[in-house]
């Protein structure tokens, strides 16, 4: 079994499945649903096979595959996964199953096409997380936009055209810079092989130019302030499933890009400009926290909350440089980087769950405005219990996954600079404020409208989806060891990459 091309299977089973689903046609929506669910379950099972075959002691890329692809430009179909990749792949396969289950009756129109788009998206996202060739990464990175563009553009809300254009142009604009950077690197190294690029010698000015190119590309994706404004619009217009995938996984592609490109390829420029990323991260945490506080649309609120939470990921990644090089403390640096990685996984679970919750409400009342709700605890007690749990995870309560990563990053950044830690810890207050104020207005209080009074509680399918998210959130919160164990060697390797200077 260890000889199986597991990663290729993970990428191409969903894509092949998508073609089969398309054959179901518009007339047989149920066949499309069940087939998609089956495909995602198979993919989930295959991704679970990664774990027993994974060497936890090694930070190197595993499950390697390499095939000729574009020999003319020395680019090959090369795959590999370390602990970080495996964690993100598992997050992807897990979330996709829940998205398919969550979209079951919600999508009524062109079901087979929706499901096929989701499956293609899954394959491409997995491709991003295990591409070991820069060009291959770029292809997956860009191709991913297409199914998401379609999902928002066809099944989205009334302003979906504005939102899709904004989404597409922003990310495409960013990606162009990455392409330029990759071409420069290719000209210099003569290959797109990532491992070669990691060890490529680059002067400081070269690194700085490349750093900014990567920063623009990935900052848009994360998204970081000030290039974040596409996200709230995209979320508001996206169907629930699209929002869940967008928040849970696509945003992680941005931070994953930092992990695979910025930190290892241009470590000295990253060191020099870490302050910039840290400043932007802190702005994301505080400024965006305040913006989230006053949102009237639930999806926008959670979208802004996502930006703030992703700020912890970028903060944890770049505080590494203050610690590892500035203070010569790789141990604490590793804590920061690990915190960033855990936060990626946790945010995937929590934001996915929150968007699912909003979807559940939207399916019943067809509005996302906070003021249209109130008193749901009375009519939907089970739903309310789940929503409060995820809200608590969103404000980083210990015992939920939301706490683990934030805690690690706060602990690590205190050593780098107490003020950075102080600003980051402000999320404890502002995060609780916007999340629990939302809960107060939506879940608690008196029922004001007749429409709310007749809202039915979650059905078995919705309960299954929410319970799966809840289980994951609680397990990671109560016992994060398996997750950190999975990524520990890889994070250690990442810190050593960031530590290795390429100049002088």
């Amino acid at each position, binding site marked *: 079994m260890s000889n199986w091309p597991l990663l290729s299977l993970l990428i191409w089973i969903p894509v092949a499945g998508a073609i089969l689903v398309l054959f179901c046609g518009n007339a047989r929506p149920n066949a499309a649903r069940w087939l998609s669910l089956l495909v995602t379950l198979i993919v989930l099972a295959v991704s679970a096979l990664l774990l027993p075959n994974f060497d936890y002691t090694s930070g190197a890329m595993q499950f390697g595959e390499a095939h000729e692809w574009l020999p003319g430009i020395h680019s090959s179909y090369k795959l590999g996964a370390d602990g970080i990749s495996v964690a993100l792949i598992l997050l992807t396969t897990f979330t996709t199953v829940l998205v398919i289950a969550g979209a079951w009756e919600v999508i009524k129109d062109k079901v087979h096409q929706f499901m096929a788009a989701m499956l293609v998206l899954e394959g491409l996202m997995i491709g991003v997380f295990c591409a070991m060739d820069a060009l291959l990464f770029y292809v997956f990175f860009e191709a991913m936009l297409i199914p998401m563009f379609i999902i928002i553009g066809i099944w989205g809300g009334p302003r979906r055209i504005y939102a899709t254009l*904004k989404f597409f142009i922003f990310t495409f604009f960013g990606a162009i810079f990455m392409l330029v950077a990759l071409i420069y690197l290719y000209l210099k190294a003569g290959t797109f092989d990532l491992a070669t690029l990691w060890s490529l010698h680059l002067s400081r000015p070269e690194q700085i130019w490349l750093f900014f190119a990567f920063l623009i590309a990935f900052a848009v994706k994360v998204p970081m302030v*000030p290039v974040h*404004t*596409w996200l709230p619009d995209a979320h508001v217009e996206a169907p629930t499933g699209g929002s869940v995938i967008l928040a849970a996984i696509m945003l992680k592609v941005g931070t994953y890009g930092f992990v695979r490109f910025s930190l290892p390829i241009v470590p000295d420029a990253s060191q020099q400009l870490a302050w910039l990323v840290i400043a932007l991260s802190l702005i994301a945490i505080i*400024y965006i926290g*305040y*913006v*989230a*506080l*006053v949102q009237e649309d639930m999806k926008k609120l959670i979208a802004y909350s996502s930006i703030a939470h992703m700020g912890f990921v970028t903060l944890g990644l770049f505080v590494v440089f203050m610690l590892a090089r500035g203070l010569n403390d*790789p*141990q604490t640096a*590793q*804590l920061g980087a*690990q915190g960033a990685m855990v936060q990626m996984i946790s945010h995937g679970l929590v934001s996915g769950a929150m968007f699912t919750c909003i979807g559940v409400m939207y399916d019943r009342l067809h509005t996302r405005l906070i003021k249209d709700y109130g*008193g749901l*605890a*009375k009519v939907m007690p089970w739903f309310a219990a789940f929503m*409060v749990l995820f809200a*608590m995870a969103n*404000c980083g*309560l*210990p*015992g939920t996954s939301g*706490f*683990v990563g934030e*805690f*690690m990053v*706060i*602990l690590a*950044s*205190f*050593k780098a600079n*107490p*003020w950075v*830690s*102080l600003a980051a*810890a*402000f999320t*404890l*207050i*502002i995060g*609780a*404020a916007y999340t*629990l*104020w939302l809960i*107060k207005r939506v*879940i*608690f*209080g*008196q029922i004001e409208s007749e429409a709310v009074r007749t809202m039915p509680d979650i059905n078995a399918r919705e309960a299954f989806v929410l319970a799966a998210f809840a289980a994951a959130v609680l397990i990671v919160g109560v*016992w*994060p*060891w398996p*997750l*950190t*164990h999975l990524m*520990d060697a890889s*994070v*250690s390797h990442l810190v050593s990459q960031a530590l290795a200077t390429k100049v002088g």
Partner: protein
Amino acid sequence: MIVISETILLAIVLAPLAGALLAGLLRNQIGRAGASTVTILGVAVSCGLSCWVLYQLVWGGAPNFNADVYTWFTVGKLSLHVGFLVDRLTAMMLVVVTFVSLMVHIYTIGYMADDPGYQRFFSYIALFTFSMLMLVMANNFLQLFFGWEAVGLVSYLLIGFWFERPTATFAALKAFLVNRVGDFGFVLGIAAVLYGFGTLDYGSVFAQAGTLDGTTIEVIGGHPWSLATVICVLLFVGAMGKSAQVPLHVWLPDSMEGPTPISALIHAATMVTAGIFMVARMSPLFEHSETALSLVLIVGATTAFFTGLIGIVQNDIKRVIAYSTLSQLGYMCAALGASAYAAGVYHLMTHAFFKALLFLGAGSVIVAMHHEQDMRRMGGLRKYMPITYITMWIGSLALAGAPGFAGFFSKDAIIEAIGESHRTGHLYAYICVLAGVFVTALYSFRLLYMTFHGKERFTVVGHGQGRTHAKTTSDEPHHAHHPGELEHPPHESPWVITVPLILLAIPSVVIGWPTVAPMLYGGWFGSSIHVAQANDVLGELAREFHGPLAMFAQGFVSPPFWIALAGFAVATYVYLFNPKIAEQCERILLPVYRALVRKYWFDELYYNLFARGGVKLGRAFWKGGDGALLDGVMVDGSAAFVARSAQIVRRLQTGYLYSYAFAMIVGLILLLGGFWYWGLH
């Protein structure tokens, strides 16, 4: 010799959790009786085992337990664990928490009998017990923080238990956010501990505490601060939130929106004392920072006096007790600040009994009055409910520090310890705590007189007046009848309510006698609490201590007794014999009275500054930053720029052949002209 095993400790923690999960998740299957049975069973198991653990530690000669249960995470060389530390301090907390919790569970059967959220309530309070036990049994800062936040969560859920009441959900949100301000400091304190010691395990941290002396941290460049002070002040900010010390006290009075049993359990006996417990637990660190201890002393003393004053002007029976709780927490805190940790923790224990008693007694009154809480509509209740009346008197005597009662031993020790202390601010603190004694007696007896004595200020309108039945539909308790009118005459509560009252009244009377000598002066806490030789005020006092009987006799000639007696006399005169005086005082001291009624304007200040200010700031950021600047100028602006330029450039593409021909000719001329010009030079 018996060794305390991990299994026993796990059972103590997990039994209430199991009860909570069963009552919460299977609430429809097991029903109301099932929910109360499983949770009470869980807490009873926990209580029994806690008593056994205490017994084994104190009399059985068992060694302290300190071991990890499982590894939470490992990053590089850093491992964080979940584990238990059970020494005498923890064991005492275990018994107090589980005993009061058990009493409250039983009491709840009666108090919440008609509430539709019965199972949910039992699930919450059992979950609370689990969280609190995790907090006190932690052997590291991570688990401490877990328990710390988990009790905050359950407190949030319970304050907002009647979630249809806007005041309740508001109070819940307020409590959570104010606590989060404290936690903000607390988590930074934990980060500072990791920074200073490289570990979060109590054992290793305390073992290295000696290295704190002389260690500095430059938080502001060029200003080295003592690391011990930074750590302790940050940790204490957490304690200020949880234990409701000024200026983070504002959430506790509002928390009275929750059902009364939780006011007794969470907001009097256990959760709010977590901050006191934590500081006592961290005594090996605090002893290294004179500055931090001074802060603790001053904050505690301020809280003790000034929040007590507010209690005098409250008319809601629960709010009087809530302000009393604030004040008593201030006493405990001031004791910690004087390095009299044992006295603070000792007062925590005695206070847990008599304050839980007072809250549950108030609840009994509230039930009898058909969910009326305003004391101006009570009076003369003693003849209707003798058991509640007597136990409330016992509780109040204990609270006011009448010699011989539980509160006497602990509070006198605190006052004397502060008098002995020479820490910065000790004189201010001493005056505050002494004046606080007068205040305590005044509001305690005012409450008793207004509730149980004097004329009845309510009317019984009799049966069958066609009104909705006033019995507790807890969702709308205040609308079922007119203020001051009762359908039935008040009557004594059922046994599930009175038995816990009696069981709590017993320790409120007697617990001081056997415990004062060992716990306060006998070094009972052993290694749990560390006091530097120079700071040991209790050690000083121990030399003058000649047994509880002597202390009792001494009590009658000590200043606090006479001050309390003055308070008692004033309360008796004003509220029993001459109520007009109170009104006259209000008029004469109008500015003071107004300041007290408005609670020194803390709420208004915070609400306007932080809540409304935060929303204003958010709106400015959203509309100005994201909306106008980023989207307006950058995104849509650049899109508009492209569109505008395209508009202009598009004009060139006219589609007429002569335009293109003209353009070609102009281009050719320019090109040739250029060549000619530059070619010449």
